[in-house]
């Protein structure tokens, strides 16, 4: 699971309500993705290109159980890496087939627009402009299996729990 893409840099304490605002609760999935970060970075969602990578500081995804990760995935982001990630957001990311990696110090490695190369299985993050590499928390086999299946819903369909 090697990913390479253009980097967007966000700071500390990026919470679920910024990722998946309440204004997105009662609209269609197509409209929901346009509202990602509409309160802290209006217009950003239209700039994202498929394969882009999100880099952030500490406590990314703090807050609600609403699955912000699914909106980041549908927006086309390939994955995200942060200094630290809220446990509930992290579980949501894996469950919705969106690769997420905790890598302390990663937020200091990048400027916006740099190209990152990430090996999710090894937990390594490289800035191709500076050559700097850091290693974060490796994904467990269980989480890799869920990601490779495409998320929990796909697993449940495969196993016959959902039609």
């Amino acid at each position: 699971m090697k990913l390479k893409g253009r980097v967007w840099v966000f700071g500390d304490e990026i919470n679920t309500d910024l990722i998946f605002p309440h204004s997105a609760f009662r609209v269609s999935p197509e409209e929901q993705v346009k509202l990602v970060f509409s309160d802290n970075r209006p217009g950003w969602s239209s700039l994202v290109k498929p394969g882009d990578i999100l880099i952030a500081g500490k406590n990314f995804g703090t807050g609600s159980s609403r699955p912000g990760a699914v909106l980041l995935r549908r927006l086309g982001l390939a994955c995200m890496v942060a200094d630290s990630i809220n446990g509930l957001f992290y579980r949501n990311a894996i469950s919705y087939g969106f690769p997420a990696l905790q890598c302390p110090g990663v937020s200091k490695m990048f400027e916006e627009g740099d190209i990152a190369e990430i090996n999710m299985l090894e937990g390594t993050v490289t800035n191709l402009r500076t050559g700097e590499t850091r290693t974060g928390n490796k994904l467990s086999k269980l989480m890799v299996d869920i990601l490779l299946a495409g998320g929990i819903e796909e697993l449940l369909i495969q196993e016959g729990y959902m039609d």
Partner: protein
Amino acid sequence: MGMTMSEKILARHAGVPAVSAGDILTCRVDVAVCHDMFFTVAGQIDFERINRIADPDRCVVLLDHAVPAPTAKDALGAVKARAFVKKHGIKNFYDVGEHAVIHQLLVEEGFAAPGRLIAAGDSHTCAAGAMNAAARGFGPAEMVYIWCKGETWYQVSPTILYNLHGSFPSRAVTGKDLFLYIAGVYGDATNMNVEFGGEGVGNMTIPQRQSVATMCAEINAEFAIFPCDSVLREFLEERGDQEVDAVDPDPDAVYYAIRDIDLSSLTPYVALPHYIPNNCCPVADVAGTEVHQVLVGSCSNGRLEDIALVASIVKGKRVARGVRFIVTPASQKIYLEALKAGYLETLVEAGAVVTNATCGACYGGHMGLLGPGERCLSTTTRNFKARMGDAESEVMLCSPATAAASALTGRITDPREFLEG
């Protein structure tokens, strides 16, 4: 090697004699709960395609976030919820009229109980830790997984132990102040459990423990667990629990950190806007800050003793002009008790608006949203930018006593002026 309370509950539910931090386990889940937002918000998971559920009697469905429905989309979500529980034979369904904010409902109805492993589609689920349970939030996809399979995976996290000593110095300092102090001084507990111990726990009421356990979601805690002491046992006896399957930490349990707090040294505390960890201070430091709305309610602080304390502060006085003072009880039961005790009458006479029991404005849903340039001082759980309305509004968090005192003056006010003078 000894185990923490979190480790003991996980080991018990994994069917293994011992676990330690870092282990990944598959655990049987005792209770799995979803509220109306699971059914209302589009694009989360196609729950109508579920064809079998492991054990309907271990499932709970309730309506709390948007009740009675403020929009047609919310009403549609409730229609889907009612159809879902009928299709799958889920008897534990709580509709409008028998509703409560999820974390209060789990306590009132007995689902949150010592030693249990509880899963719910809500981030503040760690609230049930006040009942000596290991409880955490999950997203909609994982809730479906748990409903279908009756189990899920857990990674055992390291645990921080807060040893509490003494008792709160006065009625003006309560559980919320303790939590905001912890969050302000020690910051987040990301990927960690938080547990409480020490003789000071015995000096905290059950609602105070619920407030602290709820708020531990805001420091990113996995579980937040209180011990099962005589105060909790008395509560469980009154609730009618037949069996108590409590967990105690082993004396040689291994902790990431042990921190001591003297409850008698605490003062009223607030969280400043937009985030909580390392962003809190004594009320005295921001006293005089203008507020436009004051809100008392939520899974953190909408309980009877919170409403009683607020009523005692505002009794015979008037809310400041230009301040909207909203009180939202956490359950229909609490609403009725506050009504019978005369608290609601006192509040309305003082100029407060008492709403139906709901999550309401806490998550920006309904009844008390903010416009640009407005500041709300709130006993609710979160102060995120734009959470309670406009992106140019601010939310600061506090205890019910600080909220009540500030509603009377229109400025952030130390409640000790009203309760100790």
